[in-house]
């Protein structure tokens, strides 16, 4: 009995393919080494100080998005929330509100947007893809209606510095302590906390999660609210980084965020994903773009590479899995013949 058991299990363990998040980290290391050989500027502080701010918002939103996709849902409205919370922040500041309060209310708007998504998906029972395509238009519409085609730009210098300057003479942008804090926070939340365990459980099987006494609907609402809140934070930071609050801030960012999450090894079918994989994917994106810039490769090649990696992120694990299964079948066949 035991004998058969170990025979069946072992080949699977031996040939377990790399998971995609490991592959992406290997790719990142290769890129960093290769890039530094190719161009001495690549691994310098200056280059990083240029590269990092560009992926700041993506990192911020990709963190909760990872949890959301792991739980089997998706949010396409994040970029619109970024826009709306930025507009709220800008307009309230322009009306003379204390800037701290304005920023806070900008984040609160994000929380509310997330709550709307969450309630529509979990309580009303609509599909998250359709709901968030609708709220993508709705939230952006609110931003447009509130702001019109004007913009707010006269933020105090100390605040806009926060958006794009580095800390002293280091390469780290001032926003990064906050961003790194959030990455660690979400890393802990996802991989070490009860909340994270339950998120994976829901993504793997909603039915089994119900039988395990997990309150699935409330959990999903919380995830949407988290995503909205982080989009709100990103909205304020985005405004500060470009010193402008206007209605079309971060237009189209949702696809970059989702691409980052998927590239980081999060399964679109839910139940699988890691925060470090996603963070690595974001840095990979940023580094690749920076390297292409340095080498004067057209940014279009970068866009093409993004798309190819994205398709690769679903295709390669699939092919590896098929090869793996084929090998197991062959081993079993051999065992059968041996008998």
């Amino acid at each position: 009995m035991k004998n058969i058991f170990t025979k069946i299990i072992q080949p699977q363990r031996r040939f377990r393919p790399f998971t995609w998040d490991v592959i992406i980290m290997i790719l990142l290391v290769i890129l960093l080494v290769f890039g530094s050989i190719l161009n001495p500027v690549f691994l310098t502080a200056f280059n990083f100080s240029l590269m990092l701010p560009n992926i700041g918002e993506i990192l911020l939103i990709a963190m909760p998005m990872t949890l959301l996709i792991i739980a089997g849902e998706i949010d396409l409205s994040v970029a619109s929330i970024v826009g709306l919370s930025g507009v709220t922040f800008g307009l309230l500041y322009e009306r003379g509100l204390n800037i701290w309060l304005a920023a806070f209310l900008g984040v609160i708007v994000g929380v509310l947007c997330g709550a709307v998504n969450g309630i529509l998906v979990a309580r009303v029972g609509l599909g998250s893809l359709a709901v968030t395509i609708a709220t993508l238009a709705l939230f952006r519409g609110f931003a447009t209606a509130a702001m019109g085609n004007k913009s707010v730009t006269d933020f105090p210098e100390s605040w806009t510095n926060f958006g794009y300057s580095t800390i002293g003479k280091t390469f780290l942008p001032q926003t990064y302590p906050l961003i790194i804090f959030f990455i660690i926070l979400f890393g802990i939340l996802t991989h070490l906390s009860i909340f994270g365990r339950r998120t994976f459980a829901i993504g793997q099987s909603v039915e089994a999660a119900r039988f395990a006494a997990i309150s699935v609907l409330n959990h999903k609402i919380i995830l949407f609210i988290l995503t909205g809140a982080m989009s709100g934070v990103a909205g304020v930071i985005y405004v500060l980084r470009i010193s402008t609050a206007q209605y079309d801030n971060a237009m189209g960012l949702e696809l970059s965020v989702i691409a980052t999450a998927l590239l980081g090894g999060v399964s679109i079918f839910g139940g699988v994903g890691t925060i470090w994989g996603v963070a690595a994917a974001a840095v990979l994106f940023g580094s690749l773009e920076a390297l292409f810039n340095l080498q004067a490769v057209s940014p279009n090649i970068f866009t093409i590479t993004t798309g190819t990696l994205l398709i690769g992120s679903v295709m390669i694990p699939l092919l590896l899995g098929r090869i793996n299964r084929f090998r197991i079948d062959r081993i079993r066949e051999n065992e059968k013949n041996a008998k």
Partner: protein
Amino acid sequence: MIQKIAAFQTTNFKINAKTLLRRRESGILMVLVLVSVATTLINPRFISGYGLSDLLLNTSMVGCLAVGLTPVVIARHIDLSIASATGFSAFLTAHIIVGHGWGVVPAFFVGACVGAIIGAVNGVLVAGLRLPSLVVTLGALYIIRGIDYQFANNKQFTAEKLPTDLMHLSQDKIYGVPYLFCLVLLLALFGVWWMRFTRFGRDLYAIGSNPPAADIVGIKVFSRTFFAFVWCGTLAGIAGVMYLSIYAIVDSAAFLNQELIVVTAVVIGGVNIFGGLGTIVGALLGAVLLRVLIGALVALGVAQFWQQAINGLLLLIAIGIDRILSRRSETKIERIRDERKMEIS
């Protein structure tokens, strides 16, 4: 000898498939008429002859794309690369026909071919390898956009360079219906025949309605899904040529970020985003409705800034209605269970 035995709920509730669908499409039509009439009452210029044909011309592109996307969505897939394909086809077609000095017909042929190739690649990845269409077409969106930018390289083609026949095409009309919209109608007509009167089309409904069962009854899932993507790509290519004709200028940013508008039109038109349900006529009406609303807002003097919010709200209402309809049939199952309860006690 053979007496009729009653079926168990056909007497309780009679959802006739045809009337249900008709209800949805007639519903959109009613909203359309309502909005148009109300707007015309307030601003008589809205529905004047010029306004109508202008409206149809402006609907041509999104209409064409909606007709293209519908079979894909019915088969429980999605194509996010559709707008990029349109933009790319617009630019590439312009490049090729300007180079060769070709006219209208070759232009459409070239555009359709460009789109078909894109659709075929998506189709192989989604139908052949069974990869998730959302991810594949999102990747395709980036790849096509990148190739488009790289290829266009800040060039643009303007009206002087483009063939004049093509430029005129967007202005010509039959009985006030622009040629381009006629083309969309023709494509839609073919689509209706395909989706309603061929086994090929019906198989797509079956695939979207119950994918495992489709495999079991032996439907050729690969070829059906593959062709749906090719069709979608082809129509995106044709829409690209329409873009050339309508805007008379094309650069790499043509039709950027418009994919979700097309999805919105299709869903408002009653095509279920989870597959199996909807018609090409509905999707086309959805596209028209979106356009009419924009026109109505302008005519009513509502700040155009509200347009997008209203689009979003409309989409929410549309999926909400779908949900209510399906809930209603669920509660009817509950009612049947009640009958069983009575038998038990």
